[in-house]
């Protein structure tokens, strides 16, 4: 039986005050296991980004709890939570958020440098991960000289360089054409995912649903369905 990577229980989040108060996430619960790709899907405004933020330890829920590999993350203080994210969670943001003034390899090395690793050692390690994503020859270029798909792969290399067991992708194919999006997801499934890693993907791109093991659908802040595609397969 697969080990539980993420367990979210009755997560609730409100935004705003008074008449403008909105219930962004309504008692969302789910479990994602190691070795699977878990999709959060839904239309814009359905609360999936808010839910993703609460799961990844960057937005505190008003109610409910998040447990990642037996650690209740919202019981940690700010520094502990930052360390937890640094060591256990890898992020690939929708806009990548790569530093244009650093080289590609320096961008990839950032999590290692934040972990106080030696600069040269971090760069060497980052080069190894750039090789994994097939961009070693682009190591010394600034990110803005790369194509969208290449920037996506740099962001993936940055997310996995510190070997996190949870990987979070926010709309990974939003800025990519259909073919490149599929290639990226195929790469994630074949090269990044392993039995000790859980990949959480927020998307509304139905073209890549085929790569999911589980798909959780959200609408108006509520979980409407969870499909276990690996069981279907």
């Amino acid at each position, binding site marked *: 039986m697969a080990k539980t990577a993420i367990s979210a229980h009755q997560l609730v989040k409100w935004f705003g005050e008074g008449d403008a108060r909105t219930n962004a996430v309504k008692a969302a619960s789910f479990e994602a296991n190691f070795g699977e790709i878990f999709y959060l899907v839904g239309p814009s405004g359905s609360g999936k980004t808010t839910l993703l*933020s609460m799961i990844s330890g960057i937005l505190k829920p008003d109610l409910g709890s998040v447990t990642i590999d037996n650690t209740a993350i919202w019981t940690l203080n700010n520094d502990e939570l*930052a360390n937890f994210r640094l060591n256990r969670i890898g992020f690939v943001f929708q806009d990548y958020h790569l530093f244009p003034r650093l080289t590609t390899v320096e961008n990839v090395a*950032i999590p290692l440098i934040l972990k*106080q690793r030696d600069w040269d050692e971090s760069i060497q390690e980052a080069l190894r991960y750039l090789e994994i994503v097939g961009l070693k020859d682009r190591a010394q270029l600034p990110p803005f000289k790369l194509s969208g798909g290449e920037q996506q792969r740099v962001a993936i290399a940055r997310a996995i360089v510190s070997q996190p067991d949870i990987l979070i992708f926010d709309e990974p194919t939003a800025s990519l054409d259909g073919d490149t999006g599929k290639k990226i997801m195929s790469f994630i499934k074949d090269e990044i995912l392993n039995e000790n890693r859980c990949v959480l993907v927020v998307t509304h791109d139905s073209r890549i649903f085929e790569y999911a093991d589980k798909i959780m659908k959200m609408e108006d802040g509520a979980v409407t369905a969870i499909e276990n595609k690996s069981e279907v397969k």
Partner: protein
Amino acid sequence: MKGILKIAFKLLVNDKGKFAALLMGITFAVFLMVMMTSIFSGVLRSASSVVINIGAKIWVMDPAVTTVANSIPMPDFVQDAVRSINGVKFAVPLYSGSATLRLANGAYQSVSILGLDDTSLLGRPELLEGNITDIFAENGFLVIKDSEINKLNNPHIGTTFELNEHRGVIVGIAKVAANGLFGMPTLYTTYNRAIQYIPSARFTTSYVLVEPKSVELVQHIKDEVKKMGYVAVTNEEFRENISTYYKYKTGLGTNILIMTLISFIVGLSISGQTFYTFILENLDKFGALKAIGAKSRELIIMIVFQAGFTALTGYGLGVGLCTLMIGLAKMRLPNYASVVTFGNLGIAFIMVLIIAIFSSLIGVRKVLKIEPFDVFRG
């Protein structure tokens, strides 16, 4: 921590346009601040040049004297009375005044004239040419070799001139530590010749120069002189009084202060605005760093390092530029009144630190306010 600072450094210097703008702003501000205060220091030093050059330990004068150039003659008995004060080793008169010379070519030229005590020649300048005893020769004068000497048609030993229908002869060429403020050549002669050649009022002693027997007796001498209705000040106090006069009783100090403040505000505005834009442009990246796991204090360190590095580099460039400009100016104008002092550098350094702190604060405030959640929301 070194790695984080290296990232901060690369983010800063690789943004060449902004880094250049930041450096230019701070360099320009430091240049102006140091230049303004250096000119002021130079003017103050020149204003006190006679006090510096004569070097007497205590100066006795009329209480109304504000600057060394505006002496108020005292009666001769003041010198005798001062000599009789317990604790005075010796006391000698000094004449300080100005006159108009008629040069050999018929041209007229204003000069400063200092008349030294005939017996001791206390405060005599260092001779470059000639013999000091020649000052006692008939019509003997020493001329100071400074940037103004050319106004006397490059005089040499033996050059003659006319002073109030008296013949004058240059018997020596000397140098002094500080040049005067008013752009006039300076002549030294004996006290008695000075008061004989230069028309004066009833009283002739500009200052009485005093050597105390010991430092402990200085206050006693001051008290005794005060009882006589005059004032005795030490060399340092006299220079400080002159400095205070120029700072607070003329428009000079206020104008320099205003210019220095304007330079500071210009530097603060340029660097603050540019640094703020730099932070704004990288705000989403800082948010991403926070999401990845950077702690707030690490981001603060990055920003403070960036602001501090820029400020210190700009400070160095500004001081260097200022020194270069003063050096170039002094090559053309040897008497150019500008002195870079540790005090000036300290003031500029404090102002640069304020600029760095201000720039850091606005950057830190912005970065601490961003939530990693905003990065997900775009």
